[in-house]
C-alpha cells in the first residue's frame, strides 16, 4: 500500500473547465503525496462541489473511463501523478468530443469511427463454429510480433483527443480505430482485410494523418498508433503484407 502523507499547509490549486459558466472553476485542495489527478477531482467533489461532473471507474488504468486533459495533455486521471512541485493544474474535458457536462464528454464520435472499421475478427466460415479447429498464430511468429504490441487499446480516447486532426473534428477515423484496423488486417485468421483497407483508404482514413504524433505520445498503454497508420498506408498498395 502506498504511503500517503500530507505536508502541513501544502495545497494544490486546480482549475476545472465547467459547462455552467456560473459554476466555480477554481479550487484549492489539500495536497497528498503521491497525488493522482483523480485524487484532486475527488477532493473537489468531496470538499467543494458535489455537482462537479467527471467519470471514473476502475482506478487502475484498465477501463479508459477517466480520460481528461491536464495542462493540455490527454491522460488517464487515475494514472497521472501530479508533479511533485506543481502548485496549479488545469483540467479540461477531452478535445474533439461533445461535452455533456463539465469533464464528461460524449464519446459517440470516437466509437462511431471505431465501428466503421469492423473492429472484430471476421473468421472464415469453415473456421467458425464449435467443431472447427482453433486457428493459431504462433507466439514467436512475425505476425504475432506485429500484432501483439498494438493489442492493448482500452478505448480511452486519449489518442483521439491528442490528434490535431481528429480533435478538430476534421472527419478523421482517428488513431485508435486505425490501430485496431491494422491489428485485424495483420491477422491471417481474418477475412475482412480488404473491406478494412477500403475504409482506411477513404478521405477520412490514413491520408488524413499529418504525423503530429500526439497519439503515440499520449497513449497511456504505450501503443504506437502512428506506426499502425504508417503500416496501413503501405499495406494499401502491398498485397504481400
Amino acid at each position, binding site marked *: 500500500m502506498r504511503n500517503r502523507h500530507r505536508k502541513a499547509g501544502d495545497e494544490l490549486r486546480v482549475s476545472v473547465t465547467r459547462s455552467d459558466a456560473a459554476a466555480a472553476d477554481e479550487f484549492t485542495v489539500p495536497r497528498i503525496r503521491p497525488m493522482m489527478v483523480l485524487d484532486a477531482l475527488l477532493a473537489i467533489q468531496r470538499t467543494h462541489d458535489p455537482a462537479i461532473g467527471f467519470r471514473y471507474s476502475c482506478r487502475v488504468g484498465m477501463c479508459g473511463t477517466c480520460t481528461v486533459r491536464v495542462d493540455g495533455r490527454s491522460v488517464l486521471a487515475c494514472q497521472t501523478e501530479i508533479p511533485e512541485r506543481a502548485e496549479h493544474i488545469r483540467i479540461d474535458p477531452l478535445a474533439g468530443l461533445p461535452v455533456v457536462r463539465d469533464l464528461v464528454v460524449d464519446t459517440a464520435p470516437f466509437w462511431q469511427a471505431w465501428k466503421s472499421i469492423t473492429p472484430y475478427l471476421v473468421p472464415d466460415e469453415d473456421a467458425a463454429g464449435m467443431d472447427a479447429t482453433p486457428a493459431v498464430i504462433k507466439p514467436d511468429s512475425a505476425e504475432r510480433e506485429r500484432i501483439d504490441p498494438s493489442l492493448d487499446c482500452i478505448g480511452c480516447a486519449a489518442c483521439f483527443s491528442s490528434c490535431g486532426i481528429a480533435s478538430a473534428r476534421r472527419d478523421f477515423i482517428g488513431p485508435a480505430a486505425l490501430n485496431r484496423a491494422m491489428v485485424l488486417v495483420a491477422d491471417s485468421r481474418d477475412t475482412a482485410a480488404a473491406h478494412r483497407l477500403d475504409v482506411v483508404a477513404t478521405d477520412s482514413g490514413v491520408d488524413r494523418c499529418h504525423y*503530429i*504524433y500526439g497519439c503515440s505520445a499520449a497513449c497511456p498503454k504505450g501503443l504506437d498508433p502512428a506506426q499502425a497508420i504508417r503500416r496501413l498506408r503501405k499495406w494499401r498498395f502491398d498485397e504481400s503484407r
Partner: protein
Amino acid sequence: MTVPQFLFFCAFSVVALAIIAFGVLVVRTAQVDDGGPFVSRALLARLAKPGSERAELQRWAFYLHRISGVALFAFLCLHVGDVSLFVFSRELYDEVHQVYGSTAMRIGEVGLLFGLLFHAFNGIRLVAVDVADLGLVASTRALYGVVAATVLCGGVGTVYIMAPVIG
C-alpha cells in the same frame, strides 16, 4: 513613392496581415480543439523532458507548416499579379518592382524565406516519415534537423537579402 508603388505596398500589407490573422486563427483554434498547445510553463516543462514528451514539438511543426503554406500561397498570388504587370507596361513593372528593394519589403522577404525553407524541409521530413518509416523519436530528431537547416539557410539568405540596405 508613386501611386502604383503605394498600391502594391498596400496589397503586400494586406497579404501580410492576412497571414498573421491566419496564424492567430490556427493557434486560437488549436487552443480550443487540440488540447495540446497551451503556451504555459507546463508545456515548457514537458518539452524540457527527453523522450515522447518532446513529440509535442511536432504539433507546433504542424501548425507552422499550415501557416507557412498559406503564407506562401498568398504571396504567390500577389507575386503572379505583380509579375503580370509586364504584359501591360514594362515601365509600370519596373516601377512596382523597385518596392522589393525597400527595407520593409526586404524584411517581409526574409520572413517569406524562412517560411519557404521550413515548409520545404518539413515537407521532406513528412515524406521521410512515410518512406523511411520514422517513429516518434526519429521523426522528432528529424524535426530538429529541419529547424537547424531552416535557421542555417535562412540566416545565410537573410545576409544576402538585407546586405544592400544594412550597408
